[in-house]
């Protein structure tokens, strides 16, 4: 990942990038585009190699994290343009940066933290927003929270629980900490530091992006105090135990609770009174990519409300584009778990922590080792 001789972060052309660009210019372009160039191009001023959207753009993505018909429709409307997904997107910051530096990808799915890190490393291409006018459909709060790419989805961290088994109403993180000893071994937390520590910081009344050592120390103490009562820290199927009651309280993502609630209606979702932390994900372009025009055209296409709704309907995620609501399935659009209404104002979005990342990591490891 962090090889000392890798200069892509400085904007210098690495040997790999040089070879890829050479291949794109010399061999990769379809004959039709070359012919257009030779003839002076279209009325829009020609499709010079620099601005051509012909070719194949490679995307790093999660499996099934794309509208079912989006790519096929795009390729049908843009002959000669192809989007290829490699579904091995990393959920870790370092993993994402490592992938972006590999020279394999033209654009990638990443959360705001990983994007911030990638920007700091210097491997994210600034987008030409004039070529992505459909960004206007995205709510301003998400655009502000994800300024280096196009936001695609977000996920809130709240509480899923079984009122029938707990026997009382839960309305806050404070309730979770209070009830954990009573339901020892039946409480699960998320196994991702940003979400778990972020939520704990909200419980303590601090910012979920805090870089203050004393606040993070208090966060560690709070997590260490509840750890003996936790069944597990999980990063997949976090709320699955809520279905059969083996878990009665879960710190969980909204989409996971919504999914489990479909199978077990007794599960309830809580928007904690102390507030919530949420991640924002989106697509970012890789600086070394020779296919930025194609990437920007595809980004713009994917943000068209109908196409974006296809993505939401395929993934079931909480969405960032109100204009797509008319095309989104009612089960998602009307789901109070995924669409919290005015309460969204109390959500704090995760952003890149910079130098404090190491401090977070150390504290997270201390929690896990305790």
């Amino acid at each position, binding site marked *: 990942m*962090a090889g000392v001789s890798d200069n892509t972060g400085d904007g210098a052309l690495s040997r790999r990038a040089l070879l890829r660009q050479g291949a794109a210019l010399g061999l990769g372009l379809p004959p039709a585009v070359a012919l257009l160039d030779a003839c002076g191009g279209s009325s829009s001023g020609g499709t010079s190699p620099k601005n051509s959207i012909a070719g194949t753009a490679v995307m790093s993505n999660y499996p099934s994290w794309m509208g079912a018909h989006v790519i096929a429709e795009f390729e049908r409307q843009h002959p000669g343009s192809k989007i290829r997904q490699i579904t091995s997107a990393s959920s870790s910051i370092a993993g994402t940066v490592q992938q972006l530096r590999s020279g394999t990808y033209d654009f990638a799915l990443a959360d705001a933290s990983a994007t911030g890190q990638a920007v700091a490393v210097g491997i994210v291409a600034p987008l030409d927003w004039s070529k992505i006018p459909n960004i206007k459909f995205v709510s301003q709060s998400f655009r502000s929270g994800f300024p280096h790419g196009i936001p695609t989805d977000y996920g809130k961290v709240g509480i899923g629980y079984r009122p029938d088994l707990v026997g009382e109403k839960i309305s806050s993180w404070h309730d979770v900490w209070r009830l954990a000893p009573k339901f020892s071994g039946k409480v699960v937390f998320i196994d991702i530091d940003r979400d778990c520590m972020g939520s704990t910081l909200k419980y303590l009344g601090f910012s979920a992006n805090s870089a203050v050592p004393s606040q993070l120390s208090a966060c560690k103490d709070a997590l260490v105090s509840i750890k003996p009562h936790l069944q597990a*820290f999980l990063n997949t199927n976090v709320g699955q135990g809520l279905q059969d009651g083996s878990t009665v309280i879960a710190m969980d993502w909204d989409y996971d609770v919504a999914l489990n609630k479909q199978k077990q209606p007794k599960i309830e979702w809580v928007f904690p009174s102390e507030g919530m932390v949420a991640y924002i994900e989106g697509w970012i372009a890789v600086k070394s990519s020779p296919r930025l025009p194609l990437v920007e055209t595809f980004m713009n296409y994917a943000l068209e409300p109908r196409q974006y709704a296809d993505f939401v309907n395929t993934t079931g995620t909480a969405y960032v584009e109100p204009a797509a609501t008319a095309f989104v399935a009612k089960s998602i659009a009307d789901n109070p778990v995924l669409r919290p209404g005015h309460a969204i104002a109390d959500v704090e979005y995760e952003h890149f922590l910079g130098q404090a*990342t190491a401090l977070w*990591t150390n504290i997270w490891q201390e929690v896990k*080792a305790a």
Partner: protein
Amino acid sequence: MRRHRVLERLLVVPTAAWTLVFFVAPLVLITVFSFGSENLVTFRISFGWTASNYSAFSGSLYLATLLRSLGLSLGTTLGCALLGLPLAYFITRQRPGIQRLLLAGVIVPFWTSFLVRTYSWVNLLQSQGPIDRLAHGLTGHHVEVLYTPTSIAIGIVYSYLPLMVLPIYVALERVNPDLYDAAADLGARPWRQFRRVVLPLARPGLIAGIIIVGVPAMGEYVIPEILGGGKTLMIGNIIVNEFLDVGNYPFGSALAVSLMVVLMILLFALRRVQPAFEAR
């Protein structure tokens, strides 16, 4: 004659090249990285030949984790030996056809994905799972071991048991069965026979099994991740975290080198003990 020698040496070249490129070079690289430092914002590594990564390793968090890994590795290796030795002995005492069948039974699980086998233990050990229900039916008590150090130990013993059984089997399979009959004729009861005849003859295989199981078990990180529920931190998990999540290659390298040094010390100690062991 000389031509033969040249040809012999040429035969070594592919293996030597492979070892050099994929074993020695990465080892040197990791050692060099372990003395570097990294800016965790820009991911830029500088090589100032600092030992700060090693001094950070001496912190209580990492030492406690290393000791936990060591304890779990020793415990699970012992568990594998206790289960593997009688099993290997039992297999060698069967007719050749049955032996092949039983050996296949030991090896066949290896044909299934390691991840699938490990995840299957989540289903077996979880609350309301088959083991819990069986225990509740028999004793009236629930057995809830999933996401505890016990479930990690069960997972490691299960996964590594064949690596213990096979070398012991190879050692015992070469033993002339007449030796067992002779011991019985001389009045040795089964337990004494096992202790005085089988065990000494199985020692080379047992020691090989201890090394094959103990070394990877020490750095194991997948099984603790899946069966430990993220609550039991092992040294392997920290190393993976430093490389893949934090991206701190120098510190991750220092942890990896430190783990290697600890394992080498243990292996040297085992080698020193081995002759005395064999002589008994």
